[in-house]
């Protein structure tokens, strides 16, 4: 009965690699988000999609590319990983402007 799920939970990779994180929600929400939580626990929004359309795109390197194949999925692809990309990435979803429900997070470590 998981509401917002992410895979993988942990991701350890070398600098320069390309990786993807997947997110799925079964709440019937129409909007999905990606947040980055840094080592000091600060959370910052990266992207938001509404009905597969990109509506929020914060100042994020273009190595990060979100993809939403349908309303229930929002994946995050990262090219040429750098040390500074190490963080916990949270996916979230909501019904329009209502409260957001968060996934369990993906801890990315770039070596």
């Amino acid at each position, binding site marked *: 009965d998981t509401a*917002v799920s992410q895979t993988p939970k942990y991701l350890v990779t070398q600098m320069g690699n390309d990786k993807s994180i997947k997110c799925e929600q079964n709440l019937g929400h129409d909007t999905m988000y990606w*947040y980055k939580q840094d080592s000091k*626990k600060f*959370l910052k929004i990266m992207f938001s999609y*509404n009905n597969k359309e990109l509506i929020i795109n914060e100042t994020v390197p273009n190595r990060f590319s979100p993809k939403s194949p349908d309303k229930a999925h929002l994946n995050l692809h990262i090219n040429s990983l750098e040390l500074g990309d190490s963080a916990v990435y949270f996916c979230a979803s*909501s019904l329009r*402007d209502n*409260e*957001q429900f*968060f996934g369990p997070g993906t801890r990315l470590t770039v070596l």
Partner: protein
Amino acid sequence: AQSVSQHNHHVILSEAASLELGCNYSYGGTVNLFWYVQYPGQHLQLLLKYFSGDPLVKGIKGFEAEFIKSKFSFNLRKPSVQWSDTAEYFCAVNVRGGGNKLTFGTGTQLKVEL
């Protein structure tokens, strides 16, 4: 752009003590306000929210928050904390009609000692 300040970065309390965590935001327009909690190793969970109406909002686990518009504040309170309340607490704001972009405060680490 809106911003959120949480002045208490680390709080240590004994069980049964009362809790108040400060949250102030800066934005001149209409906002929605949230408190989220992150237990160790877990995802964020919504504690409570304010959209409109009664400025005193009750949430889960005995938490409440009061929206004071004149002070741009949304402080979180609990009359008697428990050891299980040990967690990171985040205040967040979004602007009505602004695409539901949540802006978070820097978080408050609460440790409750037995």
